[in-house]
C-alpha cells in the first residue's frame, strides 16, 4: 500500500517531452487530471480489501450464529462491535497510554537508529563492533525481557517504551545502513571532484540516498510498534490496551479482548498511514511507479 503524493507530469509524455515550449503550460488541467486519477486509483485500490474483509466477517458471523458457538469461546463480530461500542470510553482511555508509549518508543528508536547508523557509516571499526550486538539484540526473547523491564523500572511507562524501541530499532538501523551504502560511487566521485568534504558528502549525498530505505524500515517497524507497546503492558501496567486485554481475558470477556484487538489494529493502521503520507511528502522527487504513469 503506497500512498505517495504524486509529482506532477504523471502523463506518459511528461517524462520524455523534449521541446521547451510544451512543458510548464496547462498546469491547471494537469492538476485536475492528476487529482481525478489519484482519487480513482485510491478507490480502486481500497475496493478489493474492503470486499475481502466484509466477506470474512460475514463468514465468521454466519459460523458463530449457525453453529451456536459459546460467546466466551468465540463471540460474533456483531457482539464484539457492540461490546466495544458500549465500552468505548474505557477503550479510549486505555488506548491513549498505549499510543503515547508507542510514539515515545518509536521516537527513541528512530533517534537511536540514526545515531548508530551514522556512527557506523563513518567508522568501519564501530560498524564491526556494533553489528553483531545489533543482531544479538534481536535474538533476545521479548517474552523474557519484558517482565524484567517491569522489575527494573516498575509499573511506569519506561518498560513499555523500551520494548517498543527494542522491537523497532533494528529494521530502521539496518535500512539506514543499507541506504547509506547504496550511494553511487560515481556521485561520490563527482562530489569529491567538487571539493566536498566528508560531512558535505554525507549530508548532500548519503542521507538523501538513504531516505527511501529509511522509510521502508519505518513502515515495517511501525507495524511492530503498537504490538510491542501492548505486549509491554500485558506483563505489567496500570493502564493501556494490553492490561485491558489481560483483565478482560481473566474475567472471560472474550468480546472485550477482541474489541481491544480491533482498536490495536486501527491504531497500527492509522500510524502506518501517517508514515506513508510523510514518506510521500519527503520523497516527492521519486518517479512514480510506471503503472501509475501509464494508467493516468
Amino acid at each position, binding site marked *: 500500500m503506497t500512498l505517495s503524493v504524486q509529482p506532477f507530469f504523471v502523463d506518459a509524455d511528461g517524462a520524455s517531452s*523534449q521541446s*521547451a515550449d510544451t512543458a510548464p503550460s496547462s498546469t491547471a488541467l494537469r492538476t485536475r487530471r492528476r487529482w481525478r486519477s489519484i482519487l480513482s486509483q485510491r478507490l480502486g485500490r481500497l475496493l478489493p480489501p474492503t470486499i475481502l474483509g466484509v466477506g470474512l466477517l460475514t463468514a465468521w458471523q454466519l459460523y458463530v450464529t449457525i453453529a451456536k458457538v459459546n460467546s466466551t469461546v468465540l463471540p460474533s463480530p456483531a457482539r464484539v462491535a457492540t461490546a466495544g461500542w458500549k465500552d468505548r470510553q474505557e477503550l479510549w482511555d486505555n488506548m491513549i497510554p498505549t499510543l503515547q508509549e508507542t510514539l515515545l518508543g518509536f521516537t527513541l528508536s528512530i533517534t537511536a537508529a540514526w545515531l548508530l547508523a551514522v556512527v557506523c557509516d563513518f567508522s568501519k571499526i564501530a560498524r564491526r563492533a556494533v553489528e553483531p550486538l545489533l543482531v544479538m539484540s534481536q535474538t533476545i526473547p521479548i517474552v523474557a525481557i519484558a517482565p524484567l523491564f517491569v522489575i527494573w523500572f516498575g509499573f511506569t511507562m519506561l518498560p513499555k517504551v523500551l520494548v517498543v524501541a527494542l522491537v523497532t530499532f533494528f529494521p530502521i538501523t539496518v535500512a539506514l545502513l543499507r541506504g547509506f551504502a547504496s550511494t553511487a560511487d560515481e*556521485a561520490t*566521485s563527482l562530489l569529491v*571532484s567538487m571539493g566536498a568534504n566528508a560531512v558535505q558528502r554525507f549530508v548532500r549525498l548519503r542521507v538523501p540516498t538513504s531516505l527511501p530505505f529509511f522509510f521502508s524500515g519505518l513502515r515495517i517497524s511501525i507495524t511492530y510498534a503498537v504490538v510491542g507497546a501492548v505486549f509491554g503492558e500485558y506483563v505489567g501496567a496500570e493502564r493501556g490496551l494490553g492490561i485491558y486485554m489481560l483483565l478482560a481475558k481473566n474475567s472471560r470477556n472474550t468480546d472485550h479482548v477482541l474489541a481491544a484487538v480491533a482498536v490495536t489494529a486501527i491504531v497500527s493502521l492509522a500510524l502506518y498511514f501517517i508514515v506513508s503520507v510523510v514518506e510521500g511528502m519527503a520523497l516527492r522527487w521519486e*518517479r512514480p511507479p510506471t503503472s501509475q504513469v501509464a494508467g493516468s
Partner: protein
Amino acid sequence: MGAPTDESGSRIVTAPSNTIQVQRLRKSFPHEGERRLVLNDIDLEIQEGEFVSIIGPSGCGKSTLFNILAGLDVPDAGDVLVHGRNANGQPDHFAYMPQKDSLLPWRRVLDNACLGLEIQGVPRKHARAEAAELIPTFGLSGYEQCWPWQLSGGMRQRVALLRTVLQHRNVLLLDEPFGALDSLTRRHMQNWLLDVWERYHWTVVLITHDIREAVFLSDRVYALTGRPASVHSQHVIDAARPRTAEMFIDPDVAAVEVRLLAALGADRPISSPAGTT
C-alpha cells in the same frame, strides 16, 4: 589544413604559464599480485580556451587519466601543472563531468545545476540566481523546477554540463558526455555544445571513443595507445569555426580521420588488434 600534425606527441614544450601541462604521468594498479601499469609517461598540454579531445582504444586507461586530472586520484610519478604550479591530487582546477550524468534525483533541475556552487559555500540564493542566468543558453527554460526523471537523456546531459560549467574552474573535463545518447540526439548535443563553446571559449578536455565527434569538436586530438596508455600522436584539426558537418568534405579533415583510425588500430580487422587489451 595548415599546420601538419605532430606525430611525435611526447616531446615536452616549454609552455607559457597559462596552460595546463601534464608531464610524464605514470599510474599502476595492483592486479593479481603484481602491479599493472595503466598510464605510461603521458604528456599533454592544453592552452587556455582550447578544445582538446583524448581518444584511445577502450580500456586504455582514459578514465584513470581523468581521475588524476580531476584530483580524485594521485599519479605514481609525473605532474599535473596548472599555470606552472603542481596540482596533483587537487580537485580545484578541473570541473569534472562524469560519464553518467549523476544528477541527484532529489534535487530539481536548478538545484542540481547549483550543486558545485553550494559545495563551494556560495549561498543557495546566489547560486540559484547564477544558474538561472544560464538556463536559457542550456535549453532548459521552463524546466528549472522539474525533477531529473522528468527530463530526456539530452536534457539531463545539458543539466550536468551546466553544473560543470557553473563551478568556474579552469578546465572542463568531459568524460564521454554523449556516450549514452542515441546518435541523433548526440548530433544535436554536439552542435549545441559547439554553439555555446563559440560563445564562452571554455578550456575543454573531452574523452571520447568517437573519432568523428573528436574531430568535429576539437582544436586538437590526442590519440592514446592501448594499455599501458601513452600518447601515440596528436592531431591538429585545422578547420574553420564555427564548424558544420560540411567540414568532413574537406580532404584534409578526412585525412586526419583516417590517420586517427590508424592510430587507434581501427583501420584493420579485429583479428590483428594493435596493442589493445
